[in-house]
């Protein structure tokens, strides 16, 4: 099982599942992190506490803790 916090910079991945409590899940979904969506980690902060991901037509910043809630599968 791979989650968003583990994938390398610039690696493409598809979202498989979001396993977070209701509030966070809603927020992630409403920002466009839907199952099947392609994402890519484009930037990480110094200690990799915070990452910036690109998805569809927008970019979202989240902490590693939140990224752990997003299960992904590497895309070729």
């Amino acid at each position: 099982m791979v989650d968003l916090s583990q994938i390398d910079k610039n690696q493409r991945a598809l979202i498989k599942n979001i396993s977070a409590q209701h509030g966070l899940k809603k927020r992630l979904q409403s920002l466009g992190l839907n199952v099947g969506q392609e994402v890519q980690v484009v930037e990480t902060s110094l200690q990799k506490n915070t990452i910036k991901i690109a998805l569809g037509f927008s970019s979202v910043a989240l902490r590693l803790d939140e990224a752990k809630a997003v299960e992904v599968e590497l895309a070729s």
Partner: protein
Amino acid sequence: MNKITIALVGQPNVGKSHLANAISGSNLKIGNFAGVTVEKATAKLRTEDYAIELIDLPGLYSLEDFSADEKVTKEFLVKGDYDLIVNVLDSTNLERNLMLTTELLELNKKIVLALNMDDEALKEGIAINAEAMSKILSVPCIRVSSKTKFNVETLVDTIITVHEKALAPSKLIYGSEVEDQLQTITRFLEDKHFHIEGLSYRQIAVGLLWQKREIYAIVHDHPLYVELQPILNNALGHVYMYCQCDEIDEVIHRQHAAFAKGLCTEVLSVSKIKAQSITQKIDAVLIHKFLGLPIFIFLMWALFQLTFTLGEIPMGWIEDGFGWLGETIGETIDNEALKSLIVDGIIAGVGSVLMFLPNIIILFLGIALLETTGYMSRAAFLLDGFFHKFGLHGKSFVPLVTGFGCSVPAYMAARTLKNKKDRLLTMFIIGFMSCGARLPVYVLFAGAFFEEDVAGNVLFAIYIFGAILGLIAAKILRVTAFKGEDEPFVMEMPKYRLPSLKLLWFMVYSKSVLYLKKAGTFILLASMLIWFISSYPKNDLIEEAYGAKIEALQATQETAATEQEASVASKEDSAQAQEATPNDGKVASAETDKEAPATEQEEAKEGTSVEDQIAALENEKHEKIMEQTYLGMAGKAVEPFFAPLGFDWKMGVATLSGLAAKEVIVSTLGVLYALGDEVNEEDASLRDIIKENISFASAMAFIVFVMVYLPCLAATAVFYKEAESIKHTVLLVLFTFATAWILAFITYRVLLLVS
């Protein structure tokens, strides 16, 4: 005249406020990050037949989960009085924006979709077939651009047409399995003729299947419910099975997502993928792992450097202008009291505040750039890890930066923090971010006590120091008063946008006008008040006593050499108090004992010039007279409180007057020193006077105190309103005062020791 009330609803940062401005010519606040609008605002427009009222609401990602600002929108949508919704969408991010649209369509209100940012979409090769979209949804969809005003009139016309027509249900179509179940429920309702005012059968069915509370509340009390329940259970069972999911929220979300996706494939065509890449390229530098933070710090440093050095130039002109004005006007007025009121009260007070307008303008230009380019969320990204260590949230950055402008909007901006504790914590430390009104104090003192080429750095250091204190305070509060869970940090990063010059100009201009207005009204009144209570009651006895002494001195001027000793002696009799000579004015009361030997030496030296002695006596006279005035008495009363910090009573009074508004600190100092310093008035600037009268240690303690103590009363009132708690407001007052006092005390004592 008919009235139409319109609710502008959409996801954050899609240009709702910009669109409202484009439609009505209003000046709502615009910025390139999520959460600019946090309170509903109204813009008005008149057409031939209608008075249109646009209600600009905070953006929200979905109708379900919300922070305090999103709640404003949700509440207005549910309870507010409006005729139709204009749903604003970002054409360059259609699919995600449609997620909110699907929820809005279920609200069963008249609705128009404004596909905003058409100019950007075209540039990015994104084409939306608005006609097809209107047909599919049965809702008018108009491509508009708030920036170029493309189609804005068409949008208004469409709004009026929709308003005039009866409500036509929109066509939101779900998956076939869900549609089947909806049909079953609808048929049952039709058979039983079950009506709910204003809703079609299908809408009731959707409400029931999606388990909407409002619908249940009505249906539940109806006898029909007994028969309805099994049908519903059955339908839900089917839906759950079909979706392989037994959470209704999740089912709804998937249905909406599928609809949005389906719609996009029909109406959206993308020919090139460009815009994202520009933003990504800039981000590769600006939020680079190693470069990001240094660049951020450099930019902040540059801003404060410019604020000081660039602001310095016009500041000199303004000060000279007011000096000239004071002299010229002073010469034409015979009445002493009136002359003093105008020259020492109004011109000195208001002038000392206006002098800092250039600095304020540069600072606000910096903040405007931060807000409009998109760098704001990058800074939040860069600082989140750091903030997190101190128990703060990355998103706290936005209210904190707003706090560099003014605390009032900053408290409101804290609404974007979802967690109440995060929000309160952020609000508590907003005061540590020195607001624009404190800038004059810093510029004045930095200019007075430091060389010109380092003063900009000092200014930067003051702000950084304040921010660091704020972080430490946050940590302390986090482990004591506001213990709590970490709030997740998820934030959209908008693309970079070049703000139009017009927008920048307006943002800075409106702030400057506000500052001028404040100077012309509030500061003016405060200066007059301070002048009055520091000029009255007049004390003739002191005047006469000193008058006699000075005359005596003048009489002996020729035989000065022999009589010196005597006059020094007599001077000591009459004034054992602290300020004996202008130079000794630096010595604050608490320090009189310590520095007494120095005083004597200086006097011995000065004894050589009778003129100096006369000047000293004059100064002393003014000092004495002022101490007998209302303000002087009040100042003496608060002096013990401030004495351990090295403040004389004037500084104490200025500090307290700053509670009304921080600019008043400077105007009060201006008035007090203008009144008390008539002797060496030969065009001494306020800066020089301050330098002459206040010791370095006291001045630094003063800066620290001003940096930390309570924001002005207006801000405190807003704090109370936003925090909705007396307890927290009292805590804020005590916390800021105690911290300010202790830190100023430490600063003063340490500086005394090392110097």
